[in-house]
């Protein structure tokens, strides 16, 4: 009875926080823009209808590209290729050159499909190529599409061009078409907003800024990116179809590199990780040549200058400038005070007890043995310390367990099941979570967003449910939000939940990593030198926290240099040297072992 009431109160306060967030994420900006759009037909003429329609069409494409460039960080500069494809697809289908003429809306739908397909094709190299190479490949792709449009004369009309499709009444007048495009713009804003503010959006940002950590949290890059390529491609294809109608007649030289650059710059001016920012960016860049007519010839030059200024001076773009909540100063003498008693109520006490067992693990880099015949065990509720001089293989051992490296020999068993070698993105699902030697955090995201990245495996809603913001997605988010706040309360960072992570001190980031690891309710928690850079008080609190986590039933593998911490809290210690276990046993046994002492002292 008591539990239900407090649970209800907890849910209500979470909902209040969530709604507060809703108001803060710039939704007021969207409402303002929507208001302007609604009023526009009544206060201006056909000329401005065209300009506004153009901005809306560009935004349909840019909103999708925003997920690829702004959120996923993939520099796809040649996206005009998809605009071209969409435009020609609708025009050709409506003109009836290849198949019998199709109605415009059906053609538009097919253009969206074609866009999705090619969105994936253009995007796939991102999984293999480095940033610059990928950017180049998208440019090459854009050139090719234009060349094909030029060459395939009997279908596309070659250099002469082809008529753009018309839509049935009431969409065949300037303001009618304007309304159609605004509707599409609203739709694209809505679905990209939903995707961005979901586990999918957070996963993209994690891949962009903390890829290694993202894998440890169960995020599989190809899978995460392909979904976005499909959506972005679809929106670009639809945008292309609408563009063809706007132009009324398209030729290959309507699809210039400058247009691609405009889309790209809009996102960067607007700021990464924002929907409203790029929307404002698109509007500004579309309006610029109209408003400053004498500058029209120089407009492309100005876009480039703007891009340079943004990159050098305000890398966060407009989004960073309007991020008022992160301008409030933080207390400078903050202390991290974990709430130890909460740890028993976090759901960490899993019914199934078991262990991680490593037997005779060998891991070689070339001829060098990084790990040489290592065996160790970690059990539920136990803290196992792993220490040793630099280069002894401690972090390499964690990385092997995490699946970043594959052992050459030996076996790893987890709760009785063999751990598949490699496949680091599956570890989170198995129940293994970890922190890293240097905190791998998404600086531009809030603390709570960072923590929620750890819970990817608890998603129940499918991608479509997320995009359309169906009830199961909303329920997911509320639940996840609450869980993340609980974790932050436990580690003592509740007040900083909505602060941008790059404003936090180093020690706070370490605790955020621990919260992120715990939210996945792991069976095994691996900590890689969590005490590095912490003050003496903080190390004490860290120690208490690790003990509370262990008492709650989690198996803990702790790699550390701070001998004090190890000998204080560990139940069992293994000492590594040159990849081999030099000694293992209780802290006292290990400490008085002569070989250990001389390995450390190097005598």
């Amino acid at each position, binding site marked *: 009875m008591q539990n239900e009431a407090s649970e209800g109160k907890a849910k209500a306060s979470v909902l209040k926080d969530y709604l507060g967030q809703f108001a803060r994420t710039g939704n007021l900006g969207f409402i303002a823009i929507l208001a302007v759009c609604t009023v526009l037909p009544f206060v201006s003429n056909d000329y401005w209808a065209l300009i506004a329609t153009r901005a809306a069409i560009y935004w349909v494409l840019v909103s999708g590209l925003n997920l690829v460039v702004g959120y996923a960080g993939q520099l796809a500069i040649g996206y005009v290729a998809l605009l071209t494809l969409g435009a020609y697809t609708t025009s050709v289908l409506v003109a009836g050159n290849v198949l019998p003429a199709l109605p415009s809306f059906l053609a538009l739908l097919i253009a969206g499909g074609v866009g999705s397909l090619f969105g994936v094709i253009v995007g796939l190299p991102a999984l293999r190529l*480095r940033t*610059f190479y990928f950017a180049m490949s998208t440019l*090459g792709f854009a050139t*090719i599409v234009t060349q094909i449009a030029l*060459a395939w004369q009997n279908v596309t009309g070659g250099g002469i061009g082809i008529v753009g499709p018309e839509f049935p009444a009431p969409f065949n007048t300037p303001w009618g078409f304007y309304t159609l495009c605004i509707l599409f713009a609203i739709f694209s804003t809505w679905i990209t907003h939903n995707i961005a503010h979901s586990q999918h959006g957070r996963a993209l940002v994690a891949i962009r800024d903390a890829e290694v950590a993202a894998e440890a949290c169960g995020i599989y890059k190809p899978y995460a990116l392909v979904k976005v390529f499909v959506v972005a491609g679809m929106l670009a294809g639809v945008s292309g179809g609408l563009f063809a109608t706007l132009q009324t007649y398209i030729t290959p030289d309507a699809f210039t590199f400058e247009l691609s*650059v405009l889309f790209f710059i809009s996102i960067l001016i607007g700021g990464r990780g924002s929907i409203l920012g790029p929307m404002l960016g698109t509007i500004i860049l579309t309006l610029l040549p109209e408003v400053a007519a004498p500058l029209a010839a120089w407009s492309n030059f100005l876009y*480039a200058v703007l891009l340079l200024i943004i990159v050098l001076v305000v890398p966060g773009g407009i989004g960073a400038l309007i991020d008022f909540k992160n301008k409030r100063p933080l207390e400078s003498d903050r202390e991290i005070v974990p709430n130890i008693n909460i740890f028993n109520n976090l759901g960490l006490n899993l019914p199934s007890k078991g262990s991680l067992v490593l037997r005779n693990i060998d891991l070689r880099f070339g001829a060098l043995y990084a790990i040489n015949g290592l065996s160790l065990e970690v059990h539920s509720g136990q803290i196992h310390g792993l220490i040793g001089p630099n280069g002894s293989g401690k972090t390499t051992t964690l990385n092997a367990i995490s699946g970043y490296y594959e052992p050459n020999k030996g076996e790893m068993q987890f709760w009785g099941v063999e751990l598949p070698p490699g496949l680091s993105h599956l570890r989170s699902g198995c129940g293994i979570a970890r922190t890293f030697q240097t905190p791998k955090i998404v600086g531009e995201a809030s603390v709570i967003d960072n923590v929620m990245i750890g819970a990817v495996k608890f998603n129940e809603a499918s991608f479509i449910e997320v995009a359309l913001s169906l009830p199961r997605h909303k329920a997911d988010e509320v639940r996840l939000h609450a869980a993340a706040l609980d974790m932050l309360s436990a580690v003592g960072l509740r007040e900083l939940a909505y602060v941008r992570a790059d404003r936090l001190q180093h020690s706070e980031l370490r605790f955020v990593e621990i919260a992120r690891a715990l939210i996945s309710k792991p069976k095994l928690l691996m900590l890689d030198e969590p005490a590095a850079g912490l003050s003496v008080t903080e190390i004490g609190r860290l120690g208490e926290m690790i003990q509370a986590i262990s008492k709650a039933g989690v198996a803990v593998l702790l790699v550390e240099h701070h001998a004090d911490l190890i000998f204080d809290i560990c139940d069992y210690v293994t000492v590594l040297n040159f990849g081999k276990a030099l000694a293992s046993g209780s802290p006292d046994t290990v400490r008085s072992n002569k070989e250990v002492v001389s390995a450390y002292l190097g005598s």
Partner: protein
Amino acid sequence: MFETIFVSGLAMGAIYALVGISYNTMFSTSRVMSFTAGQVGMLGGVFGSLYMIAWGLPIWVGLPMVLLSCALIGVVTEYVAVRPVLKSLDQHLYVLSTLALALMIQQVTAIKWGTEPKAFPRLFNLGSDIWDEKFWIPVIACGLTIVALEYVYRYTLVGRAFVAIAEDNMAAQALGLPERNLRIVSYALAGAIGGLAGFSGGELILAFFANGAVLNFYGFVPVALGGLGNNKGAVLGGLALGLFQQAANFLVGGIFASVAVFTLFIVVLLFAPQGLFSSTSMRRV
């Protein structure tokens, strides 16, 4: 017919190779790939036409001026688009800053020089048919550049400093090498090499603002094929690309030749993301 393809393939290949070397030279001291490499190539042709046709200067004044102007553009690149982002933790800002600068260069050229290709002077009036100078000037320029660079890297102190910085930046710093000045010099050098590409190829590709984008891509392919930082690989890659492109042009026509080149590029990269001759690999974790 076959001879024309071969000779024009070599010539275009040499131009692409020089742009590739420009990319590599900028990369070696800064670990940055810059979008401006193709643009300096374009400027080599534009400045050449400007100085020698519009201003009527003879080649022994025109060429040094072109090289100096392009070297200056290289220095501007380092100062404006590269140095500010080297300090930042977000490594990929350099793609955007150099892209922005490249676009600025392209747009200014389009507006001031015009969007039509303009004539490039006939430099020596030598040869005809397959022995026409327009094919052989780029090839000779490329050969001379490679030889000169080898000399610089092996026999001058500055060249050996470049090699050192490219191999181990921190060791070079600790040794007291003036890495900032050396970086500026290497960017100036890269600018001059890019300018030479456009100048030596001027009789073939003329003085045309759109050359920038084309050279950016086609000059990058040799680098991708040969491995980043590998000048000899860039030359091999460039020549192979030039021959492949001209052959494809002849066999399937200009437009599908581009498709062929691009497909080749993607396929090679997907199989060997670090290039065919490279051996670098990076530790992620």
